[in-house]
């Protein structure tokens, strides 16, 4: 069995009957939830701590540490599953929801027992109508068997799970915006602190965990936290679901060791670039994360490595001046959501960059001025550069706007627009400058053939 063949979550992807509770149980499903119901919550938390499980939604925060922030004397604790997967390039949680909903439910039960949760919610992205139907049907099956409700597995413990649908807003994947939405309001992020673990849903301690994070819990309980940590690398336990899209021969969702590098991912896992062309850039974890150039692809796609490995260049606000992430820290990239976007050597990086910025401008919730105004302004400048009517100074202007947004907003959406902008400008600056120069030569001030109206330009 090769290293790529170990599977924790994805073993039954592609098996239609895996959605059915009978199949899931025949394969050993719900045994760990049953066991959890007989365990002391502290014992479950200890296994999760030993596992080095880190959140799979984007930030990579240690799951056990997040759980530990819940006050010990809390009377009501909520668990909310973040199934609002919308980070462009990311489609791995959707596979769990569609192919293996019971695995998620089993993870929910284990976490609920560990945290003393009586009411759990799954916040599923509104656009995932197909997945919602699968999930609701599976949940009805689990309720019918008494795995949720007032007395799970006859243990005397009550756990209810409710599926709540979003209505189309990227920002609701941000955990505090998600809570605002689940409470029935606009998806507005809240200032942190207080963190949701202390003051979350309806003001009560709330743990928000990603789908993939929770789906790892049955394996951790079965094999022990240490075994999970041993599968991982450094301070990151387990394997990781990675979704790969773009110009590769074999796109898809893959469950991989954290030691796999970007180059291995593209060349070995995904069969190389289409048409035998060369790679030009790889976004490692959803479009919020800084892009990697071809000479930066030998770093493992692991949380810490992507942040610290010196083979990855630091993002700059202008040539020679490093972007300050705060506290003197610099920005290389991050593992983010596991959504990998591969771009071949024919990709127009100015247009790819514009599309990413345009997305954030569309999805800004509007609360904070730097983000609301900045992303729209940035999108319009990026658009004119990308489509041949840029002006002298536009490249510098883009960097300046991005730098003005970053770090100045309630939530990370502002950073998510700024970081990729700075990374594209740092690594493909020549291409942006050449676009502006050619616009000056041709006098082009109209939108090119590939043009796309974005409000007033």
């Amino acid at each position, binding site marked *: 069995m090769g290293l790529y063949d170990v599977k924790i979550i994805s073993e039954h992807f592609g098996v239609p009957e895996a959605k059915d509770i009978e199949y899931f149980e025949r394969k050993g499903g719900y045994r760990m939830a049953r066991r959890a119901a007989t365990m002391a919550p502290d014992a479950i938390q200890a296994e999760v701590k030993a596992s080095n499980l880190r959140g799979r939604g984007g930030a990579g925060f240690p799951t056990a540490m997040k759980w530990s922030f819940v006050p010990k004397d809390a009377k009501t604790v909520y668990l909310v599953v973040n199934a609002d*997967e*919308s*980070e*462009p*390039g*990311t*489609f791995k*949680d*959707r596979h769990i929801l569609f192919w293996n909903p019971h695995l998620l439910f089993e993870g929910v039960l284990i976490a609920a027992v560990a945290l003393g949760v009586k*009411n759990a919610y799954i916040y599923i*992205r*509104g*656009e*995932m*109508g*197909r997945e*919602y*139907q699968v999930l609701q049907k599976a949940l009805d099956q689990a309720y019918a068997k008494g795995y949720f409700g007032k007395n799970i597995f006859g243990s005397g413990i009550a756990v*209810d799970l*409710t599926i*709540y*649908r*979003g*209505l*189309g*807003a*990227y920002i609701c994947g941000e955990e505090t915006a998600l809570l605002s*939405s*689940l*409470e*029935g*309001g*606009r*998806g507005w992020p809240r200032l942190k602190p207080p963190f949701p673990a202390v003051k979350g849903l*309806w003001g009560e301690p709330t743990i928000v965990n990603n789908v993939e994070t929770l789906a790892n819990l049955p394996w951790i309980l079965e094999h022990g936290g240490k075994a999970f940590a041993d599968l991982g690398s450094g301070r990151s336990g387990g394997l990781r679901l990675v*979704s*790969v*899209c*773009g*110009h590769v021969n074999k*796109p*898809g*969702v893959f469950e991989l060791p954290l030691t796999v590098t970007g180059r291995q991912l593209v060349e070995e896992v995904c069969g190389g670039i289409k048409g035998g062309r060369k790679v030009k850039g790889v*976004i490692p974890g959803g*479009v919020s994360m800084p892009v990697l150039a071809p000479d930066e692809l030998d770093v493992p796609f692991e949380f810490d490595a992507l942040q610290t490995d010196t083979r990855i260049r630091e993002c700059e606000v202008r040539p020679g001046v490093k972007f300050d992430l705060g506290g003197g820290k610099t920005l290389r990239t991050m593992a983010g959501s596991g*959504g990998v*976007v591969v*771009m071949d050597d024919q*990709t127009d990086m100015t*247009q*790819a960059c514009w*599309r*990413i910025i345009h*997305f954030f401008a*569309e*999805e800004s*919730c509007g609360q904070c001025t730097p983000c609301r105004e900045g992303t729209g302004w940035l999108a319009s400048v990026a658009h004119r550069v990308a489509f041949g009517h840029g002006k002298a100074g536009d490249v510098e202007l883009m960097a300046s706007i991005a730098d003005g947004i970053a770090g100045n907003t309630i939530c990370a959406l502002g950073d998510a627009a700024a970081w990729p902008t700075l990374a594209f400008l740092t690594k493909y600056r020549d291409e942006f400058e050449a676009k502006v120069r050619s616009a000056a030569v041709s006098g082009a001030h109209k939108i090119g053939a*590939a043009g*796309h*109206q974005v409000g007033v330009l």
Partner: protein
Amino acid sequence: MPGKQLSPHIEARIQELWPRFPEGRAGKALCLPVLYLAQEEHGFVDDEIIDAVAARLGLTAAHVSGVATFYFMIAKRKLGRFHLQICTNIGCQLLGAYDVFDRCKRRLGVVNKGTSSDGKVTLTEVECLAACGWGPVAQISENGKEVPLYFENLTAERIDAILDALEQGRVPLELGG
């Protein structure tokens, strides 16, 4: 005469979901689900529906309106019978989504968010649908009700086949997955 009413089906769902939320919180929490259900029945959400939702859930019309206008999936105006939503975000963009989108615009004679003159199809550019591996991707709804399928790997031929079917008055389920 009273304005638009919430149907017995929606009332039944409210009764079913109400106990899932803490006391005093359910009315507001049900704002999103009820708006969605109302849209499924009426095709879109207008001021009359906002008033009905607000009255039933004990909320202000201002709150319900604020929610309805915040979320992309709630339509505030009548759409065509079919709502064709094409993703052009990066994964799909790299695989030719703008060619597909432009083809739709030309064939339907509309701009983004426009409805064809026969009222059959509204075309909307949407953000990432989390199906990036098999882009370009589309989703379709009919009279406010989603078709729970993804239409993937769109090419000129495949989008033409989809548009042909919509013009004939049917969703091409055989092309979805």
